[in-house]
């Protein structure tokens, strides 16, 4: 049987964000459900239309099962592979495949977390016996990568800080972003060190928040009230789980997921109008810009200076303010999708990138362990 490429086969027709930031008094599933309700309204669909559920919610025992019970859905397609924060981008691939194969007609990707108000530290995985005695935290792993990048390529703390400064400048254009005060390079450098070379302002926020994305096949997408945004390419790659097992601390699996996603989309990095890169830490953005082909390996620090990725720069990255300044519960991945869809709909208001037709959302999970790249486009680029 001939199987068509996934390019353009499925489209996002609904997105929803819960209240996010600091939202005390809500459970993970309540924030998830609020986002789902808003996504259904956005899509003009009813809950009973959903027949595919893709969910990852960190501390739950059977997250996708609980999601279905909570929403009162008995879907035909159920998926909940846990890749950490990139899980939601990975769901794009499986949702698109399930839709293409007509196993389901309306796929819901859902997430919610009260990490901030519930006092949950993201990445609280059980360490393997070979690492448990050293007390390493999630930030330690990213700090080890950043330290190696600085050693090999002369990347500086000032360059890392540029990522946080750019994210904040975007957040200042987003009324919903949690952190909107002005931020300078000096502020980042002088803030509390968490794990050398990363200060607290090189680290993502810990917030509350939920998100939901609704996808249908392209042939049905035109019937919805919103402008459908088509999935053009998606690819996932895993390189390790534990940071000591990462083959090269300065090269992530995005160097593989990126080219495969671009190939499926029939696009090059230069075709992308707006990027959402999972910025759990400032080093992430630098690594992903390199690995996705925006500059050569080692040149990411120089690339992000002079405001290149900030408002007014030549490459808009993390226009919502990112995990660094807008929102980051336990897992941020779904928010990269939602911001990309908002930009391609032309609905990003003050932070709107003019004439954005192609967007890239990239997810990261674990300790730089799982990388998933997705490319979206409007009907103009199908």
């Amino acid at each position: 049987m001939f199987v068509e490429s996934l390019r353009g086969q499925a489209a996002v027709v609904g997105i929803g964000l819960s209240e996010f930031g600091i939202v005390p008094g809500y459970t993970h599933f309540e924030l998830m459900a609020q986002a789902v309700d808003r996504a259904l309204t956005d899509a003009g669909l009813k809950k009973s239309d959903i027949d595919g559920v893709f969910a990852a919610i960190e501390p739950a025992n059977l997250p996708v099962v609980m999601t279905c019970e909570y929403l009162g859905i008995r879907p035909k397609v159920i998926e909940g592979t846990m890749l950490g924060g990139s899980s939601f981008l990975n769901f794009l691939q499986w949702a698109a495949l399930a839709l293409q194969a007509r196993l389901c007609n309306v796929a819901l990707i859902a997430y919610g977390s009260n990490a901030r108000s519930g006092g949950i530290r993201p990445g609280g995985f059980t360490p393997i016996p070979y690492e448990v005695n050293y007390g390493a935290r999630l930030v330690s792993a990213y700090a080890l990568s950043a330290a190696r990048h600085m050693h090999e390529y002369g990347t500086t703390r000032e360059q890392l800080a540029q990522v946080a400064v750019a994210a904040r400048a975007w957040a200042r254009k987003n009324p919903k972003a949690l952190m909107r005060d002005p931020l300078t390079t000096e502020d980042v450098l002088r803030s509390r060190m968490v794990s050398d070379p990363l200060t607290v302002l090189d680290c993502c926020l810990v917030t509350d928040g939920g998100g939901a994305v609704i996808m249908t096949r392209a042939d049905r997408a035109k019937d919805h009230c919103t402008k459908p945004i088509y999935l053009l390419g998606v690819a996932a790659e895993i390189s390790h789980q534990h940071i000591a097992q990462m083959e090269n601390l300065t090269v992530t699996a995005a160097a593989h997921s990126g080219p495969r996603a671009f190939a499926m989309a029939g696009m090059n990095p230069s075709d992308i109008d707006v990027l959402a890169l999972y910025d759990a830490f400032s080093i992430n953005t630098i690594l992903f810009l390199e690995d996705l082909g925006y500059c050569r390996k080692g040149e990411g620090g120089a690339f992000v200076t002079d405001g290149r990725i900030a408002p007014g720069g030549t490459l808009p990255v993390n226009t919502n303010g990112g995990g660094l300044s807008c929102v980051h519960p336990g897992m941020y991945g779904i928010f990269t999708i939602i911001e990309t869809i908002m930009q391609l709909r032309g609905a990003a208001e003050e932070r709107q990138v003019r004439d954005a037709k192609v967007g890239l959302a990239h997810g990261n999970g674990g300790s730089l362990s799982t990388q998933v790249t997705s490319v979206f486009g409007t009907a103009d680029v199908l």
Partner: protein
Amino acid sequence: MGPEESYQRKLAAGQFELQRCGACHKHIFYPRFLCPHCGSSYLTWVAASGEGTVYSTTVTRRKAESGGDFNVAIIELKEGPRLMSRIEGLAADRIKIGLAVRVRIAREHDQVFPVFDPIDD
């Protein structure tokens, strides 16, 4: 007894050993049932040199009442594999990438695990 239990028992007996693959001849860490490089199950234990260099290092900050700041390092062993550990016997700001280190088996809180000391020139 599986490789993990074997490794722990060797450590408890004061020996830091690595597995080496009989098919592709690479050393591996952490201990496994199958070689992560070639998939062979023909893995044997060999004495490790215990020497290596710091591949990357960070000082993770912690409140004094919780034990204070601590080093986390990734060591590249002479035999090739890397492992997470920490460097002892040197001020945190003097621990640099490339530093030559040697293993020492630490015993704390009923746990036995390798740490690394700088090799004096």
